[in-house]
């Protein structure tokens, strides 16, 4: 009996020795964020058996704190919790569209104690906890001058970061999200300036002055120009009854929102608009940066001529012209027949000349080609003929 108890105790201690209490590998870090931004907190816990991880939100002062557990989908779907339980536990909580009310302490709780959810016991005993502070602040005001550049040939963009508690290490500018290399500065910490000497479609786009603060703050200044519209090829050729694709591309910011095609009337030069409904042979496919006009079953008279593509954005319109030439199916046939005729005539002339000049040579058409150059000619009784010919 005692032996049985000893063995049982040994086994139990072995089993218990296998188990280890939960411990944090990665704890969540505190962050400061702007309104409407998003934040992510990450927590990893190891233990045997694999611990369970929970997220809790703590509001209020010491001794009058309120604890709220955060589930996936809380706060009107602004909270997302992603957890994995493979070998060890990981959990990430995402908070989207931050508001000032999201400021507070966020706690990552983990436990692998089998009794952890028992309501009769206080959670603090069985759960390990790690905390991080999230502070949500209002976007500091950056004064941008000018707020927008519209259809100008040159401009100077300025940003001032004045009313803010944040400390800045420097600033730089981006265009279309890409950093402009020479603008990185440690000197201009609260004032950023960029001068654009010549504004063409290549320099247009959304510019951002970015201040190197924690968190990073920026302001956008849009530089807008008329769209630069160009035909891919100014002269296009198509074959009769075949199809042709006329293409126009646009550059600049903002890209055209509307594309319209016109056909120039041959006589009076008026521009007739074309759309998908004008003719079932026409097909227009447009995207902001290019437009394609496909014409099926080309007709030589009707479809030849000038086509105009016009792209319109909020500032205005620009156009370009394409000249379409439709080749007739048989266009190449006439020169071909002419050449064949010439060949036949020349060959005939050559043969006739030959026959007229030396009629007796017609019999010698069979050029065996194996007659030796120097030979046995004395034994060849055709010698006389040969001599005669050679004397020519």
């Amino acid at each position, binding site marked *: 009996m005692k032996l049985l108890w000893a063995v049982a105790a040994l086994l139990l201690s072995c089993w218990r020795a296998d188990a280890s209490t939960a411990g944090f590998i990665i704890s969540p870090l505190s962050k400061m964020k702007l309104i409407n931004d998003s934040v992510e907190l990450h927590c990893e816990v190891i233990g045997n058996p694999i611990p369970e991880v929970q997220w809790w939100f703590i509001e209020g002062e010491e001794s009058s704190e309120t604890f709220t557990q955060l589930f996936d989908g809380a706060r009107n779907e602004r909270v997302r919790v992603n957890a994995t339980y493979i070998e060890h536990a990981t959990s990430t909580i995402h908070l989207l569209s931050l508001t000032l009310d999201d400021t507070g302490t966020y706690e990552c709780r983990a436990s692998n104690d089998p009794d952890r959810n028992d309501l009769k016991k206080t959670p603090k005993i069985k759960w390990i906890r790690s905390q991080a502070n999230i502070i949500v602040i209002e976007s500091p005001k950056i004064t941008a001058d000018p707020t927008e550049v519209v259809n100008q040939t040159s401009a100077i963009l300025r940003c001032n970061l004045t009313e803010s508690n944040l400390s800045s290490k420097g600033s730089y500018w981006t265009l279309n999200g890409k950093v402009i290399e020479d603008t990185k500065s440690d000197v201009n910490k609260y004032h950023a300036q960029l001068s654009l000497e010549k504004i063409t479609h290549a320099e247009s786009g959304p510019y951002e002055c970015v201040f190197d603060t924690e968190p990073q703050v920026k302001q956008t200044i849009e530089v807008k120009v008329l769209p630069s519209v160009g035909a891919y090829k100014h002269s296009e050729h198509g074959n009769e009854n075949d199809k042709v694709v006329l293409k126009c591309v646009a550059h600049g910011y903002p890209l055209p929102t509307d594309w319209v095609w016109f056909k120039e009337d041959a006589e009076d030069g008026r521009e007739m608009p074309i759309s998908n409904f004008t003719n079932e042979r026409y097909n227009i496919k447009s995207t902001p940066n290019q437009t394609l006009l496909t014409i099926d079953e080309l007709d030589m008279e009707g479809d030849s001529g000038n086509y105009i593509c016009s792209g319109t954005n909020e500032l205005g319109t620009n156009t370009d012209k394409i000249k379409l030439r439709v080749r007739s199916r048989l266009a190449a046939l006439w020169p071909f027949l002419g*050449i064949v005729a010439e060949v036949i005539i020349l*060959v005939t002339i050559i043969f006739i000349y030959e026959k007229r000049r030396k009629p007796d040579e017609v019999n010698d058409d069979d*050029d065996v080609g194996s007659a030796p150059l120097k030979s046995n000619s004395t034994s060849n009784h055709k010698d006389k003929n040969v001599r005669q010919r050679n004397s020519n």
Partner: protein
Amino acid sequence: MPAALADVLSPKPLDGGWGWMVVIGAHISIGFAYSTPKALSIFFKDIQEDLGASYSEIAWISSIMLAVMYAGGPVSSLLVRRFGSRPVVMMGGLMCGVSMVTASFGSSIVYLYLCIGIIGGWGLCFNLNASLTIISKYFLTKRPLANGLAMAGSPVFLCFLAPLNQFLLRHFGWRGSLLILGGMMLNCCVAGALMRPVPQPPHPGSMAPPMEVEQTNITKSKGSCMKTAKTFVDLSFFKDQGFIIYLIGNVMFIFGAYAPIVFLSAYAIKQGVEEYSAAYLLSIMGFVDMFVRPGTGLVANSKWIRPRIQYLFSFAMIFNGTIHLLCPLMTTYPLLVAYAVFFGVGFGMVFALIFECLMDLMGNQRFPSAVGLVTIIECFPMLLGPPAAGLLVDIFGDYKYLFLMCGGVITAGGVFLFIMNVYNYNRLDKAKRGNSSEQNQNNTEQNQNTIENQEQESSSEAQRELMDVAQSDPAGQEETS
């Protein structure tokens, strides 16, 4: 015409008169043969868009055409021997015309391979082989000049076809252009019409056919399969030392010859030259080539060079190779222009002499079969050369290794030819001195082609031809060697 001459020779090549019309015909024929595969590349971009093929698929058209043109040599030789040059060239011209016309209706890339590549290639093959043969029949004393003039057709037609193709493409599209080009290639039929067959005495009964070639012709009619194969590829050529030397030198040349042309523009652009100027380099080369070929023919015809024409050929090869070796040093545009000029000179010299030397080695009778054999063997280095060079560029990322390789191979070939020819000429001189007593008998009897003399005949035959002309020509234009 002195009576003595007619006794000794029959028939004597005209060396003038109608011969020059034949040269014009050959010029046109050879011109189309060499320039068409290159000039077609102007249409490739449009064909690619229309048929939805990839760049390498399209490039195969030219490759197949060139490959068939060279590989069909033996068949062409056979036909020329049987029927003479005129019907073969006219047939070739017709095939080329038909190939282009049918290609203009094509709707798949394989169809184009068939029409342009295979049928067109065969047509060009007939043209090439037959044109070279007829020159050897019409010319002896002025043969190098005639060869130079005829081979000049290649750069002339390329210079002419390239802008013409551009013009046609713009106005008629690629289909219309191929149709018109087909019509133009029918002019090869005109060229063929000009190639009046040389008046031959018809099969004299007393003329025993000692030539192996003749023998195989006769046995062929017995219907033996092996013998039929033998008529296509006459392996007895491989016993001929002069032929083997020529073949090895030629293979080395062809291997390295075309790659620099293919990659010259790309190399120039890498050195910082503009695209248009880079393309211009090839035009310069072609333009220079146009004049160098007849010029070389003229030089080769002179009495000092003619007997030792093989030396001139090896010199031309070494010159060409050296120019390529120097190319990596040419880094600015003026230097590249100079390179293009010298390249044109070297290239023209070699090509003017390439078939003349074979005629010199083989003599009139054996030339048609020999040229067929040479072209089919040359097919391999021609197809392998540019891709191998391209591989070098891919591996090393630098064009200079390409030029070094090509230059090295060509120069080695030239040096090899030179050394072997020194040896060969010496051997022939000794044999000639030994045989001089039998010389006159050989001219009157029929044993010139007995097996014992087979070895010496190859190169000495040409020497003897010249000697005979010199002996019977009191003016003494040619030097006896």
